[in-house]
């Protein structure tokens, strides 16, 4: 049974994952005609959203993997047990910033 912290963590992960996939698709680090500075910025943006998507996907997948019989601590790639308050706060903060940006843009 998921408690409030896990539910917030999962929902925040879903929002961050959705936005990260959208932002990642808009980055064009290999586009023709970019200056060195623009290309560097595009690569940094792509790397940032790549890792945000990966981490958010882990948050979304963790309870699913636990329910599918993967024991917690069975793999070094994911920690499946209950998220800590710090992890939830970071992810929730990102999600609120994303929602704020979307509301601002209309």
């Amino acid at each position, binding site marked *: 049974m998921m408690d409030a912290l896990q539910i917030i963590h999962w929902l925040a992960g879903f929002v961050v994952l959705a936005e990260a*996939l*959208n932002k990642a*698709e808009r980055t064009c680090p290999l586009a023709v005609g970019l200056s060195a500075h623009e290309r560097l910025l595009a690569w940094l943006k792509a790397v940032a959203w790549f890792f945000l998507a990966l981490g958010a*996907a*882990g948050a979304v997948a963790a309870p699913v*993997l636990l329910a*599918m*019989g993967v*024991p917690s601590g069975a793999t070094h790639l*994911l920690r499946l047990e209950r998220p800590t308050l710090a992890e939830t706060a970071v992810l929730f903060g990102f999600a609120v910033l994303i929602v704020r940006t979307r509301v601002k843009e209309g």
Partner: protein
Amino acid sequence: MAEPASTTAGVTFIAATATIPVLTILGVPLGLRVDLLVAGFAGALVAIILLNTVPAMGDTWVHLVRTTLRRMAWALASSATAGYLTPLALLIANVPEALMLSGAFAVGGGAKPVLTFLIGRLSGKGSQSLPAKPGQEGQP
């Protein structure tokens, strides 16, 4: 006498599968390894960033939600493809265990071309493209 069907890669794969848990649904093992799914997902993300595999469809909220769900489904399908096809490649091509995650990353990044190629080869139609879904004929 050595068993003809057994290979080093096969033994390695069996040993790796024994240590890494596989996903199950209602007690039924799916044969999917978590590490391969993660590598396949990372490959799908790179494909979305560099190859623009799931382009945007419009600027409205409806289009945004639809595209987002399509991208999630794409990444999920790529992960599943990597999870199922990479062990197959390991057995067929005698790929060492050390390259397993790299292979999963590559399969996840190119899930659609890989599936198209395999289906084309198995069905004897070469590497023809799969038919597009209705309404998606004009998309790359």
